[in-house]
């Protein structure tokens, strides 16, 4: 059960391999990674600045992960979220979940993503040719919380 908030990029393969290294009780391993898309509302973006709230970010992510651990049969979990200046194609964040059977890993990963999107203090600002623009929260993201 690990949370990391960092400026640096991460190696998703190394992270997934580390989660299962030296053990043989895991049957299912799910990962999600979020990437910077090159366009926003049809216009190309040149970069994205990710602001966060140091201290609260780690607390919020740890609390979300603890909820997932309580609800599902997880053998391991990982949340990595970057902040700072990113560019199209870059990795923004990842979650990984491990469980004996696939339904727990899948559901827990979706739960982590849904809560992380709307409850962890990150804010995205996209830079386009017209200047910077704060990304609006999506209605669908708030709705996604209701299913849990």
């Amino acid at each position, binding site marked *: 059960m690990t949370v990391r908030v960092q400026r640096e990029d991460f190696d998703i393969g190394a992270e997934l391999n580390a989660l299962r290294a030296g053990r043989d009780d895991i049957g299912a391993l799910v990962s999600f990674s979020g990437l910077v898309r090159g366009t926003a509302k049809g216009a190309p973006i040149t970069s994205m600045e990710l602001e966060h*709230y140091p201290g609260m970010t780690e607390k919020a992510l740890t609390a979300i992960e603890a909820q997932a651990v309580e609800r599902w049969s997880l053998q391991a979990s990982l949340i990595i979220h970057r902040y700072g200046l990113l560019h199209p194609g870059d990795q923004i964040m990842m979650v990984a979940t491990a469980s004996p059977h696939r339904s727990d890993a899948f559901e827990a990963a979706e739960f982590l993503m849904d809560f992380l999107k709307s409850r962890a*203090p*990150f804010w995205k600002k996209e830079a386009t040719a017209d200047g910077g623009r704060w990304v609006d929260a999506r209605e669908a993201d708030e709705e996604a919380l209701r299913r849990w």
Partner: protein
Amino acid sequence: MDVLYFAWVRERIGLPKERIETGATTVAELVEELKAREERYAVAFSDMSAIRVALDQELSPLDASLDGVREVAFFPPMTGG
């Protein structure tokens, strides 16, 4: 108490953090006090449905008490992931 601002709230108010001495007992009272103080606060807090609040790094409602709180943060809905 320390008051922190993030994202466009920070940009509108023009600073990331300040120390405020206040007699406000709730978040809502603190907001009214700040709005009355200067135009930039009035602009940032003109639509409180677009503002989220954290007290000592926990999401909290607008009517929450400030009793014992050391750090208040104002920011827009979060857009991580």
